[in-house]
């Protein structure tokens, strides 16, 4: 399964090579043109260049990760997060370090050495280190350099009632959904943009959109989901099993209503469940894309991801499949009716 390969591949921000290579190999046979830019964004062009509108579908390659900043005399590795890692969940997690996937474990002061007041507090990143089993600095430096990155060593696995667990579903679910869509035939000029460095400030998507200069863009993401026991509906943001979540507002974007209406129309015409992404928090590549050139009509569709940005994340595979269906339905709808309307005054959809 492509999602498994993508999830298990390493792709910290700025180090997206492994994920990019998988997608390149996977999509090259289906593409009219494949290329990268100076930042490492991957572009896959498909469809009919003679028709319109030109659509850019975007998903980011990178994942939150760690970077080695110092190698101690004992051979342990001090690190800093790359992207928004929840430091409280790091202790005792297995990681792979560097391009050679050196196995490591995130260590901390032993529990019997902790003072009572320390036991009540979560570890901060300064208290933690990566143990790669080296006997000292010299041995560690044979395998690892300062500047190497580490990703969580989490195997993808299906479990429970149609769920999957793994790392980096944010945004490998988006990458996988785009890849499935890129293999289908559409009578539209499509550019699939697999972007870099989203997790450290949406850095790759703006230049990607500038290069593609699309008529409209759709970002496919993994997003916040807190629908577990004890959580209130108002705090859930999204709920697994209710289908793809459509963004209405986040920290960087006020949703384009014309695109949103078309997403809703495509979902309802095809009986695809959908939900609103019910929070103003967070951001995704849409925040950068919609402000390029004269402004690009941009929508965002997300798969709900429990425990996002943590070593083990959970998705509902039905949500994923409905997201893939929604992408196709949206593009078929655009094939039939390529005209995007200016948002009607005061109109909203619910």
């Amino acid at each position: 399964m492509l999602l498994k390969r993508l999830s298990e591949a390493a792709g910290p921000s700025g180090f997206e090579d492994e994920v990019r290579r998988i997608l390149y190999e996977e999509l090259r046979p289906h593409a009219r043109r494949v290329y990268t830019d100076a930042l490492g964004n991957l572009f896959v062009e498909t469809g009919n260049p003679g028709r319109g509108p030109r659509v850019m579908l975007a998903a980011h390659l990178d994942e939150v990760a760690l970077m080695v900043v110092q190698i101690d005399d004992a051979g342990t590795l001090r690190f800093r997060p790359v992207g928004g890692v929840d430091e409280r969940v790091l202790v005792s997690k297995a990681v792979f370090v560097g391009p050679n996937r050196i196995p490591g474990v995130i260590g901390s002061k032993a529990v019997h050495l902790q003072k009572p007041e320390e036991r009540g507090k979560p570890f901060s990143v300064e208290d933690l280190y990566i143990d790669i089993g080296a006997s000292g600095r010299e041995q560690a430096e044979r395998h690892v350099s300062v500047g190497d990155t580490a990703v969580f060593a989490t195997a993808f696995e299906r479990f429970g009632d149609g769920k999957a667990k793994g790392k980096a579903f944010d945004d490998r679910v988006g990458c996988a959904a785009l890849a499935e869509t890129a293999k289908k035939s559409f009578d539209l000029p499509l550019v699939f943009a697999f972007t870099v460095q989203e997790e450290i400030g949406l850095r790759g998507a703006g230049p990607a959109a500038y290069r593609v200069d699309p008529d409209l863009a759709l970002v496919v993401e993994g997003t916040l989901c807190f629908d577990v026991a004890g959580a209130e509906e108002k705090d859930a943001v999204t709920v697994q099993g209710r289908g793809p979540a459509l963004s209405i507002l986040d920290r960087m974007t006020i949703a384009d209503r014309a695109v949103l209406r078309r997403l809703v129309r495509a979902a309802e015409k095809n009986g695809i469940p959908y939900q609103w992404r019910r929070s103003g928090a967070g951001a995704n590549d849409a925040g950068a894309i919609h402000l390029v050139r004269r402004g690009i009509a941009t929508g965002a569709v997300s798969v709900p991801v429990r425990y996002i940005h943590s070593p083990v994340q959970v998705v509902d595979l039905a949500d994923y499949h409905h997201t893939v269906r929604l992408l196709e339905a949206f593009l078929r709808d655009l094939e039939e009716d390529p005209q995007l309307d200016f948002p009607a005054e005061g109109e909203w959809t619910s």
Partner: protein
Amino acid sequence: MTDWNRLTGGASAAFGPAGFETGIRRWVTDSLASRIGGCDVDRNGNVIARRSTPGAKGRVLLVAGLDEPGLMVTHVEENGVARVAPIGPLNAKHLVGVRVRFEGGAIGVVDAEHDIDGGAVDFAHLFVAVPAGTVRVGDTAVVDPQFESAGQILYAANLPWRAGAAVLVALAGELAGCPYDVTFLFSAQRSVGARAGRLAVFGETFDRVLDIGTVAAAPAAGKRKGSVRPGGGPVIRALDHSLIVRPEIKDWLIGAARSRGIPYQMGVKPDETSDGGILAMTEGGLPVGGIDIPVYRTCGPMSYLHTSDLEQTLLLLKAALEE
């Protein structure tokens, strides 16, 4: 002299949180029709009006914001209570007990959960009490502006976001004798970080850009050292969060003020991102200055300004454009 009470009252009453500038856009386009002839609305919601002069001395862009901060409904509970997220800079602790107005006309009152034990109020604790069935997810609201005038003092919740547009609308009808080609840009989504304005003039160049906004003022003269005050005249901007104004632009405005005897103040607003600042850094960059109207903002959702500052800002702009 401009009827500032009527003009500012009209701008204040028009609905328009960022991204949902429906009402204020209509007010601006209607107001411009009789003053400058016509205008365009781009797909990002900006309003652009252009006034050409044969043999023009140069091109000037004048920018003011359309929108104001607001709230968006993110969840509606069974009893009709609406949970909301902020659109732009609204502070949760200032909203408790405040009356809000939804785009569809519904009125709500903001309240907070009572189990927060003296902790900081944030949007997770806030809700809007509205009659059940009147709002849906995605609906937007603003703090009810409650515009009122008392002599030369104007009160409303949204004056910090609307005073600039009122002055530019007034200026659009008074450009006789101006030797420049003038472009008016009423920008959407200014209050969320000046997002949309730059898109309206992508690929264009201007000899000068002036960003017209407001600046937080002290309630009275001498209240705070170095602060500007309502009634003290327009504030020539030295910097904002996104902009350091070049000396020649400030000198241009100071010279215009002095030559016409227009009172002015110098000021900064280091916490606010303006369209001007974004434009200064966009593409090849543009020479940008700013003029701000002093507005006193209370800790709660209410503000006031002095109409003489609106008039003097208008006169300063006219003077600068005749230089």
